[in-house]
């Protein structure tokens, strides 16, 4: 092929072709203190700009906690200028519990937004389990980022739920390849404040990042990523720990806190062409 077809600004960014592809994720979940275990299945079907999901979560021995979920989302691509996504997902269980969530994200130029609004009814919330709401009742969370210039980015979020909420704002600045973050947040009221410190840097051919929250919220989050592996660790007080790793098509997460423990192992099988 001749270089003319490559000429620089030649063919910048494309729009997706309508060819469909699928993936199937199998997972196994286990948790306690009263030991429970169950398989999960997630079928993902992209169709042009749309992606459809179907979830099944079994739950043993409490079969009435078996739940089914459906989701649909649509993406809007604008090449290097940005992208957007709108989606809705809902889960319903054998015991009539449900969880619905609508979400939208937009990154356009120097601004990014991420909004989630949902409602959970009669279902134990979980900070860990990705197929479950984090709180009972109605909730909403808005994350935003604004890039002041190439060095400085202002970022924050507001999270509102029945009976309370949380807000956080921080400033991230780049010095060479390093990024530093400094900010503050509060839970429920301004006096429940905490500070946020962050640092991210390349390390050999990987990236490592650390984030510390001190005050009303106390937690340390560490992240590592290279081309093959990603891992994160969260240590919080009151005592709570999360650890997770992804490699190839595998992912493993675990959490332990005062109420019990949870493990979640999953494998994503590409089904392209089927």
């Amino acid at each position, binding site marked *: 092929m001749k270089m003319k077809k490559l000429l620089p600004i*030649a063919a910048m*960014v494309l*729009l*997706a072709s309508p060819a469909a592809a699928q993936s199937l994720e199998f997972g196994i979940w286990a948790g306690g203190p009263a030991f429970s275990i169950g398989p999960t299945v997630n079928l993902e079907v992209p169709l042009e700009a749309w992606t459809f999901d179907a979830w099944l979560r079994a739950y043993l021995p409490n079969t009435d906690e078996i739940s089914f979920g459906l989701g649909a989302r649509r*993406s809007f*691509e604008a090449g*290097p200028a940005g992208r957007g996504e709108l989606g809705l997902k809902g889960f319903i269980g054998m015991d009539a519990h449900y969880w619905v969530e609508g979400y939208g994200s937009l990154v356009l*130029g*120097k601004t990014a937004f991420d909004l989630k609004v949902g409602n959970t009814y009669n279902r134990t919330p979980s900070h860990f389990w990705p197929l479950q709401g984090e709180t009972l009742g109605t909730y909403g969370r808005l994350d935003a980022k604004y*890039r002041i210039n190439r060095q400085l980015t202002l970022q924050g979020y507001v999270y509102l739920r029945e009976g309370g909420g949380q807000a956080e704002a921080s400033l991230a600045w780049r010095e060479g390849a390093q990024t530093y973050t400094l900010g503050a947040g509060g839970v429920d009221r301004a006096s429940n404040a905490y500070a946020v410190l962050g640092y991210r840097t390349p390390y050999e051919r990987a990236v490592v990042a650390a984030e510390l929250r001190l005050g009303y919220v106390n937690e340390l989050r560490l992240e590592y990523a290279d081309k093959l592996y990603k891992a994160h660790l969260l240590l919080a007080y009151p005592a709570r720990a999360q650890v997770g790793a992804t490699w190839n098509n595998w992912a493993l997460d675990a959490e332990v806190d005062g109420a019990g423990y949870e493990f979640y192992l999953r494998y994503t099988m590409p089904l392209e062409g089927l």
Partner: protein
Amino acid sequence: MRRWLAVLLLAGLPALAVSATELFDQVNADLSSGPWRARLVGQIASPGGGLQEADLIIKALPAEEMVRIEFQKPDALADNYVVITPEKVYNYLFLTNQVVVYPRARARIEGLGFDLSRMSDLRQLGEKGEVGWGEPEETTLAGRPAWHVVGRAADPDAAGFARVEVWISRKPARLLRSAFYAAGGEVLSDLSWVEFAHVELGRDDLLDFPPDAEWIEKK
């Protein structure tokens, strides 16, 4: 003495005339000869009208048919980049640390008020009859001997521009500047190639993304 006469004779001769097509072929031949890195600066129309600064770094690997375009300006696109391979296009968004991967079915640029892909192949624009190229004229640009070629679009509405001007250095034949204008004479894109060098580049240099980026594969 005979040698000196020959030198004087050659120096006094006007530059041999070349056609626009021959010039564009020479430009393509140079760009295809090996990996290269270039920086383009200038102005480009913004989506809302008016002009915005553009500063792009282009890295190309002709043997692999790969190009990487890194945006320095406009500010709204700064630190985003696009990697084009024969099969896929990788679009990196700095603000959200995401890599969006598409099949290379169609290509276009968003966020700018002018479709830069119109610059992709000057020769082809002439072959398809979209642009009628005039004869190259000798000139100088920033003190360098250059060819100046003007093209006019047969159908400005279909082409997306009415007039295009390019400046190409004499030896080697390389693009120095290209400018596209609307029917009313407004600048759509005016970019100068301020740096160009054949450099050592590999596939991994172009397909280099932050390892912690989120990957979104579009089918």
